[in-house]
């Protein structure tokens, strides 16, 4: 069966809606320069007292919305208690400084429904049949019939699924906690009260749990407010750098050029493709693979890198130390223009984490997602569909633009190694989603496979399947391919040759 985040993908649910409503309201709040004291009234623009639509009662909704606002401001969650509202001590958020800190992904306990971690359970469809094959196949004798219908003793059940397979009425099902099922690194368990808990030592900030919880109980911190403050300061230029998966995020009728132009209208002084940095990365890795013993792992997905390094520390040196496309792109801007600010806009929550690390922090000032970018467009009343522009974008090669798709990074490195170093027959292996990445690494560790090049991506489909995306997967896939073909050059031209400016 498809995984939880694939089942819910592409469906605009109330979970998606509340995320976006909060972003929209908080952006309007800052843009309209409302008095900070009015923050207490903000939740009532999202919910209506006495008319709960998401939860059992308005007071619970109110409590949850306050916590979500804290995260949208970039602040850590605090438990509401006597005399302390979640919307106190928020002043530090209204600044252009970096406010967010780890952990980036947090469980909103007020919103968590404490669903069972993982149980095999008998539903009402059970007919208490004469054959009862369920109990006969059970290797642990865990199934009894106390009141006619089958009952599974959870302390005995080992979740072998044999009973599920044999039931003539399909009356037995396994129920997993969606957040934990989405997590590829087993970083979610329960606290003493049964609420989902993220084990921060294991979490790699991929963010797939945030889009998988059916109660929207897990969310990430946003930098949207700090980006608004950065933009309003005219003392410095603010550059936007756009991840390769930006193409198609606003519908198939919105061209990449229109998105660039829309971002300029927000007040960014310039926009650049991160695919440029991808090109730099490709060149580095294509050269590196010619002199690597064993396999070379890609380094552009921070969640994959963290996962591989923590599960297989012995492979750490196989994963390229080079900076990621985001940092390569930001670097060239910062080198050219001292004091300029750089905002990375992508599909990714892990990039928010990456930008917090001491090595990367000097280059990237803030990170927002496409979803947050859309919230800015809405607040600034910019309709990118209506933008007609004559600019052309030529920051990157076809191969660099392909980084957004699963398999694209590997393809870029293989093609470039062939063209520049005449290196053929690179055996390539790749995986998408962290669970599959771990299976792939396990195979390599056992010696089942011997790849030269290994690509890992945390999100299904690659970056276009990231938690911060808006566009439907298949459509975005097509658009990314088209934009990739539209580049003037196939192979990366990074190095000393700087690409022409976007203008």
């Amino acid at each position, binding site marked *: 069966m498809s995984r939880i985040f694939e089942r819910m993908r592409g469906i605009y649910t109330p979970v998606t*809606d509340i995320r*976006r409503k909060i972003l929209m309201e908080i952006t309007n709040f800052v843009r309209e320069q409302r008095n900070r004291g009015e923050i207490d009234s903000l939740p009532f623009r999202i919910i209506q007292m006495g008319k709960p639509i998401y939860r059992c009662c308005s007071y619970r909704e109110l409590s949850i919305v306050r916590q979500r606002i804290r995260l949208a401001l970039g602040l850590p969650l605090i438990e509401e208690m006597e005399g302390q509202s979640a919307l106190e001590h928020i002043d530090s958020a209204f600044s252009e400084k970096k406010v967010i800190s780890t952990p980036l992904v947090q469980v909103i306990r007020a919103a968590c429904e404490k669903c069972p971690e993982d149980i095999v359970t008998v539903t009402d469809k059970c007919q208490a049949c004469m054959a009862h094959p369920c109990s006969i196949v059970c290797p642990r004798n865990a199934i009894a019939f106390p009141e006619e219908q089958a009952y599974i003793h959870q302390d005995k059940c080992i979740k072998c699924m044999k009973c599920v397979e044999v039931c003539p009425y399909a009356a037995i099902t396994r129920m997993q906690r969606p957040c934990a099922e989405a997590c590829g690194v087993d970083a979610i368990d329960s606290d003493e009260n049964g609420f989902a808990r993220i084990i921060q030592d294991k979490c790699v900030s991929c963010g797939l749990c945030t889009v998988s919880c059916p109660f929207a109980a897990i969310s990430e911190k946003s930098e949207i407010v700090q980006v608004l403050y950065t933009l309003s300061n005219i003392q410095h230029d603010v550059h936007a750098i756009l991840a390769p998966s930006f193409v198609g995020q606003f*519908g198939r009728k919105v061209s990449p050029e229109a998105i660039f132009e*829309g971002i300029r209208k927000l007040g960014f002084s310039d926009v650049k493709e991160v695919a440029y940095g991808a090109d730099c990365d490709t060149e580095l890795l294509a050269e590196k693979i010619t002199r690597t013993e064993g396999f070379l792992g890609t380094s552009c997905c921070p969640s994959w890198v963290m996962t591989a390094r923590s599960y297989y520390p012995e492979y750490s040196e196989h994963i390229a130390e080079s900076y990621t496309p985001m940092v390569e792109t930001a670097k060239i801007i910062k080198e050219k223009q001292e004091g300029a600010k750089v905002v990375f806009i992508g599909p990714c929550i892990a990039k928010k984490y990456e930008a917090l690390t001491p090595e990367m922090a000097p280059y990237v000032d803030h990170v927002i997602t496409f979803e947050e970018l859309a919230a800015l467009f809405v607040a600034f009343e910019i309709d990118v569909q209506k933008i007609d522009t004559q600019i052309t974008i030529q920051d990157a090669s076809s191969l660099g633009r392909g980084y957004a798709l699963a398999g694209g990074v590997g393809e870029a490195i293989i093609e470039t190694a062939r063209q520049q170093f005449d290196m053929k027959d690179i055996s390539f292996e790749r995986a998408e989603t962290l669970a599959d990445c771990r299976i792939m690494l396990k195979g390599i560790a056992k010696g089942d496979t011997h790849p030269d090049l290994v690509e890992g991506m945390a999100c299904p489909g690659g970056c276009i399947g990231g938690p911060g995306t808006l566009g*439907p997967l298949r*459509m975005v896939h097509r658009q990314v391919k088209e934009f990739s073909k539209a580049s003037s050059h196939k192979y990366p031209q990074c190095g000393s040759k700087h690409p022409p400016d976007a203008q």
Partner: protein
Amino acid sequence: MTSYTKPIVVELCAGTNCTFRGAGNLLHVLQSEKQIAPYCDIREVSCLDNLCDHAKNSPVVRINHEIFEHASPEVILDAIYTRIEAFEEKQQ
């Protein structure tokens, strides 16, 4: 202008406001529903006179001149199937 040969015209706002609140997902649903294709002309249109009121009522859809605000797939698909049934009845 092309003349309408299909009995149902579904105009879906593809402006940024409506896209932000789920128009892209709705379009995807409508395009994936193969049974409605012979009857429906599905069009992505520009912002419909800011009917959404700054995304508050998004997404906005117009089916044969009738406006739907907060257009969710279940409401829109049902509205389309209802019209298809009415059309089929008239044909007989």
